[in-house]
């Protein structure tokens, strides 16, 4: 009995020591939250985020961390669903007490999250959710260090369609805030450019696109602007090949990452050849020295070169957050917003500067340069912009 009692005492002492050490260690870090889909049809983005988080925290902590403490990232899975995104964001703020939140790649989720950020007054840097209203709503605590729909359409997609002299285009958009938003902007841009087009919507999770593809084939387009995110795009590309819509028509994946995910070639087979996609990353188009450093660090850590550009986007946002915390000299939300508004930081995609004029998408927005790339015999060839092109469109 005595032995049992002393065993219990020992256990209690060890447990309290572990807890004490744990809480002491916890005080030595500053927590920043990351939201993104780690499960669901866009789970590959979550994996890309995890890779970028590892490299980003290593980079920041190797340079002294934030406010003399180590930076700690807490990742909350949103499963690509707005309700889970909003509750996950709230959990980061109320349970984990993070000082700032970064991430997201699904616009509908981000639109739910910005409401929570606004309610709890927590700075939120959106990384890869493109819907215009995210910044156009003019929320003080919401920033975006990544592409927005209007920027991608006006600066890249519409100009590329004109440059390639496409005469007929078909727009297929998933029924999401990103898909419907970018489709509307594309319609306006194509009308302005005098390109004939037709458009339709599709269900994001749909695995069967044959009905839509037959209608598209009947229109006989030169290019199909496919605004479908997740593994749904793989079904679309493979079935477009089966109904022989491609290679006569060129498909542009208007998001990018699904064409770069590891299972892309397994799912689409040879039908993936000549497919085009939007991206902000190509090893021959590295705008800064940090981009090269990032590629080398990625290769060293994971044994392969980086593919999904969203790993680099979250890496950049971690650097932006750390820089703002250090310049603010505090974790106070309003001081962080002030510091973010004054950001002028060189990251892998260029120099970050957020717009400060209210009343449009440009408010708290920094738009990185985007590329149009084509798969040519499983090699990535940059087509647009012309100054970055590494080859010509193959049909």
């Amino acid at each position, binding site marked *: 009995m005595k032995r049992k009692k002393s065993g219990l005492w020992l256990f209690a002492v060890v447990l309290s020591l572990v807890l004490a050490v744990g809480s002491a260690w916890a005080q030595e870090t500053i927590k920043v939250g990351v939201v993104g889909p*780690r*499960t669901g049809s866009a789970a590959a983005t979550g994996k890309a985020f995890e890779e970028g988080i590892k490299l980003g925290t290593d980079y920041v902590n190797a340079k002294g961390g934030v406010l003399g403490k180590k930076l700690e990232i807490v990742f909350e*899975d949103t499963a690509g*669903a*707005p*309700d*889970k995104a*909003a*509750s996950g964001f*709230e*959990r980061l703020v*109320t*349970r984990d007490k993070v000082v700032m939140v970064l991430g997201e790649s699904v616009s*509908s989720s981000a*639109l*739910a999250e910005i*409401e929570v950020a606004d*309610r709890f007054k927590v700075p939120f840097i959106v990384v890869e959710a493109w819907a215009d209203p995210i910044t156009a709503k003019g929320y003080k605590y919401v920033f975006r260090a990544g592409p927005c729909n209007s920027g991608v359409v006006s600066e890249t997609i519409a100009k590329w369609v004109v440059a390639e002299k496409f005469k007929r285009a078909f727009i297929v958009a998933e*029924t*999401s*805030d990103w898909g419907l938003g970018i489709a509307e902007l594309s319609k306006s841009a194509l009308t302005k450019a005098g390109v004939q087009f037709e458009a339709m919507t599709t*269900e*994001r999770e749909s695995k069967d696109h044959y009905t839509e593809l037959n209608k598209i084939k009947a229109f006989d387009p030169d290019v199909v602007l496919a605004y479908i995110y997740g593994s749904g795009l793989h079904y679309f590309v493979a079935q477009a090949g089966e109904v022989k819509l491609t290679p006569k028509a060129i498909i542009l994946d208007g998001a990018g990452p699904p064409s770069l995910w590891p299972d892309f070639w397994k799912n689409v087979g040879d039908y993936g050849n000549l497919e085009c996609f939007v991206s902000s990353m190509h090893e021959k188009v590295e705008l800064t020295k940090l981009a090269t450093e990032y590629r080398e660090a990625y290769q060293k850590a994971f044994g392969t070169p980086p593919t999904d550009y969203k790993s680099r986007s979250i890496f950049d946002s971690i650097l932006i957050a750390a820089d703002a915390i250090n310049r603010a000299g505090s974790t106070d939300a309003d001081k962080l917003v002030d510091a973010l508004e004054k950001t002028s930081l060189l990251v892998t995609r260029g120099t970050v500067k957020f717009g400060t004029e209210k009343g449009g998408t440009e408010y708290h927005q920094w738009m990185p340069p985007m590329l149009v790339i084509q798969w040519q015999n499983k090699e990535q060839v940059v087509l647009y912009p012309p100054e970055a092109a590494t080859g010509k469109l193959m049909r």
Partner: protein
Amino acid sequence: MTDRRFFVILFVAVGLLSLLPLGLGVYHLHVMIVSLFYVMMASSWNLLAGYTGQVSFAHAAFAGIGAYTSGILAAKFGLNPWIGVFIGTILAALIGLGMGILCLRMGGIYLSLTTLGFSEILRIVITNEYEITRGTMGLQVPGLVADYSKPAYFYIMLGGAMLTLIVLYKLIYSDIGLNFRAVQNDERAAASLGVDVVRMRVLAFTVSSALAGMAGGLYGHYLLLITPEIPSLDQQFLVLSMTVIGGMGSFLGPIIGAISLEIFSEYIRAYGEYHVLVFGLVALVVARFAPNGLMGLAEHRLRGRRKASRTVSAAAG
């Protein structure tokens, strides 16, 4: 249980719970608010499955009807959310009544299949009619209180749960409740004694649907965002698990099941995808070792202790 005893216990419990906002932080208060939503859902589903033996898979769908009715009326037509919740409750009751009249003569597996089909149809309609419902993008709705406040929502949900439990208690411990149990135990025997079996079933279905509609409406305005997740089958199975694990057919079981499983699911959320697996394992273990749920287990223990103490006192005497 006498009326007096029930109300004393209820008001003492509500009084104690009312003190929680003084001691709990924002996060823990959120967990309690969600728990209260599940108390409403599991208790009202228990009226169907536990007291009249009708296994419906449309309970979450009725919560969705309440949430979307109230949400659309508030977001698109600017109607006061409280009036919206009331209309949502009435609409859920009417659809429940209509569905009850149509399919409750069938009973058994046919009722389960019909409600399963209804649930899925509703999900597809909500997802596809995105111009009205915003589908999977989620419908942002105004709150029930002007300034967002967790304690205010806690008291609102506590009030909703209290109302649900009073309605259920009054129904279960009345002549109608006696008829419910008679229908559950042996519907032929009940019918031979003059109990209108179908009418009893329709009544239970309508009341249960209305309570789910009210719970959904309140919950939607708490989340400020309504998505097809509310009327999903995932949500339905969660409510089912809570009732079964807590103890189906007992008044207290679903309450204990809802609160304990919601708290438990918050703890195991860190395991990501595995948290569903852990949840399933717990349900399996409970089903194997405590088929009457946690309440059944507690009653068994209590009975065992009483028996033991009687034996001891008899031996001493």
